[in-house]
């Protein structure tokens, strides 16, 4: 089996139809002004004109999923007693997600280290992750808020993907990344890809060149800890934040969640839902004490987790894919890049005895 095949643009719909015949197919679709991932409809072409408004994270880590069902039943031997039956609900079925960008699929590598680790195996996540294939579309040019190259990624990063589609003349060079991805390319609708290899390589290089030079984030983990108690700094960084949570819900690497029960009469479900570390209630304790009482404390934790705590736990890997959604979609203009740069500047300036060297 060839690892690279040519997908002519004219064959895209037919290939998607072929994928949909053997898998549940998820594609980016236009909904109003937004592009979101949803079930493939043969009558509607996917919108791959730009990166989707919402990342593909819900395809593996749904915004709301059932962990188990329970029901209350009368004890036949003692009708005054009620018994409870539990039933595990495990995801099944194979799916292909088409048209995510490299930052979106790279986000799953951040999850993998947490949800599929030696110490912890989240069966719901792992079942979906193993049964979901990603046909990712390499970017041709950088967007205004893109900073994937700051975090060790790039416009043609294939990490987390099974197939990478690189735009070439009249279509895409489809590069098989995983064994399962290479199997997807075994279709008569795709042609030999060798002669497009050079063009694809040039397209990747051109996309990388469209990004401005990357900031050096090596000092970030230590810097964020160094400014941990500097609440004047964090109050300033969070001044514009309105704690709406858009940054967390649209982030391909945010994975905080809640677990709640939802009753329907004598039965109910235990649900896992996305949660938002920017909300006051997130860490509010039963006693009324809240270790993160202000939005400054919460923003500090959010940025600290991505650029300091997570790297500290996972061999330096940054828990941010640089997609820029939190920047583009923030109604108040909070820019995580500026916060990290400012923290590094602040830590450096403080260590040198002055506090005026900040960029933001």
């Amino acid at each position, binding site marked *: 089996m060839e690892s690279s095949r040519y997908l002519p643009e004219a064959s895209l719909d037919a290939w998607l139809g072929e994928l949909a015949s053997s898998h549940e197919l998820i594609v980016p679709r236009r909904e109003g002004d937004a592009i979101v991932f949803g079930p493939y409809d043969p009558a509607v072409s996917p919108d791959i004109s730009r990166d989707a408004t919402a990342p593909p994270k819900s395809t593996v880590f749904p915004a709301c999923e059932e962990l188990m069902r329970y029901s209350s039943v009368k004890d036949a031997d003692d009708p005054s007693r009620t018994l409870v039956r539990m039933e595990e609900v495990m995801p099944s079925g194979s799916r292909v997600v088409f048209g995510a960008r490299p930052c979106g699929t790279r986000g799953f590598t951040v999850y993998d280290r947490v949800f599929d680790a030696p110490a912890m195996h989240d069966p719901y996540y792992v079942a979906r992750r193993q049964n979901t294939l990603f046909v990712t579309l390499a970017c041709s040019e950088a967007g205004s808020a893109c900073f994937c190259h700051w975090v060790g990624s790039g416009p043609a990063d294939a990490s987390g993907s099974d197939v990478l589609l690189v735009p070439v003349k009249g279509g895409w060079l489809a590069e098989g990344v995983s064994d399962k991805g290479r199997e997807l390319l075994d279709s008569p609708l795709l042609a030999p890809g060798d002669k497009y290899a050079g063009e694809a390589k040039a397209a990747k290089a051109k996309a990388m060149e469209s990004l401005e030079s990357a900031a050096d984030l090596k000092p970030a983990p230590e810097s964020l800890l160094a400014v941990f108690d500097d609440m004047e700094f964090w109050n300033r960084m969070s001044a514009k934040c309105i704690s709406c949570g858009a940054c967390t819900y649209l982030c391909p690497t945010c994975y*905080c969640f809640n677990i709640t029960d939802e009753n329907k009469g004598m039965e109910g479900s235990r649900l896992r839902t996305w949660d938002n570390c920017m909300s006051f209630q997130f860490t509010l304790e039963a006693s009324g004490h809240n270790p993160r009482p202000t939005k400054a404390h919460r923003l500090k*934790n959010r940025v600290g987790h991505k650029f300091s705590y997570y790297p500290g736990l996972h061999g330096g890997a940054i828990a941010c894919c640089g997609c820029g959604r939190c920047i583009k979609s923030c109604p108040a203009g909070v820019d995580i890049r500026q916060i990290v740069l400012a923290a590094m500047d602040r830590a450096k300036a403080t260590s040198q005895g002055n506090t005026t060297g900040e960029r933001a």
Partner: protein
Amino acid sequence: MSCSVNPYLPDMATILETVQETPNIKTFRVRLDNPDRMAAFRFQPGQVGQLTSFGAGESTFVINSPPTRMDYLQFSVMRAGEVTSSLHGLKAGDKVGVRAPLGNHFPYESMKGKDVVFIGGGIGMAPLRTLLLFMLDNRKDYGSISLLYGARSPEDMAFRDELPEWLSRKDLNTVLTIDREAPGWEHRVGLIPNVLREMAPKAENCVAITCGPPIMIKFTLQALKELGFADDQIVTTLEKRMKCGVGLCGRCNIGGKYVCVDGPVFTYAQLKELPNEL
């Protein structure tokens, strides 16, 4: 961690008995319904579990019975919100879910041969009870054992059925205190840190274990420092809002540590290494 492959699935359990400890604290004694699971259940003093009231959800509580007494698992629940209120409505024979054991435990091995001072405030007595009973069941392994237990009023004092025994034991120095005078109260009156100063336990070869409201912990730490206790001689448990209990959901982290897996037990020396976010 539960032996179950799925860390989110609780074991079904039956409430054997409940004890109304105080107006807002109720103790539940439960057994796992699967006898093999119950027989195989192992935990260490200080470990916690998630207790489910089906339909209301789960909350985290310490297993406050000791591993030396496995007739049942005991959880004491202060009514504070939806889940705890629902749990308070349950009675003997009702079903609950148990996800346990979770988290780390008290360093009881390294405390062998040492004197121990327990300092508990309010519901903070629950985790201390586990270790206290464990040590009393292994009494020869430890030096002198003291207990300072305080509550706002006599009515707020949990484990009242056990207090007479604790007070009468020759191998346990028990001091009870309440914040303000109350009719019929025959023990100490005063805030825990002040009573601790009066008790003046010797720091040499001693470990202090404290649990209670954050404000009590703060001033108790001050008192212990004045008494000469080093940071690694002070052990406490942290209360955090926890949900998943397995280090994923993200709400109980302090920097890179997750209280649900790296805690809830920490020495004061360990706490000082963490970012200041208690």
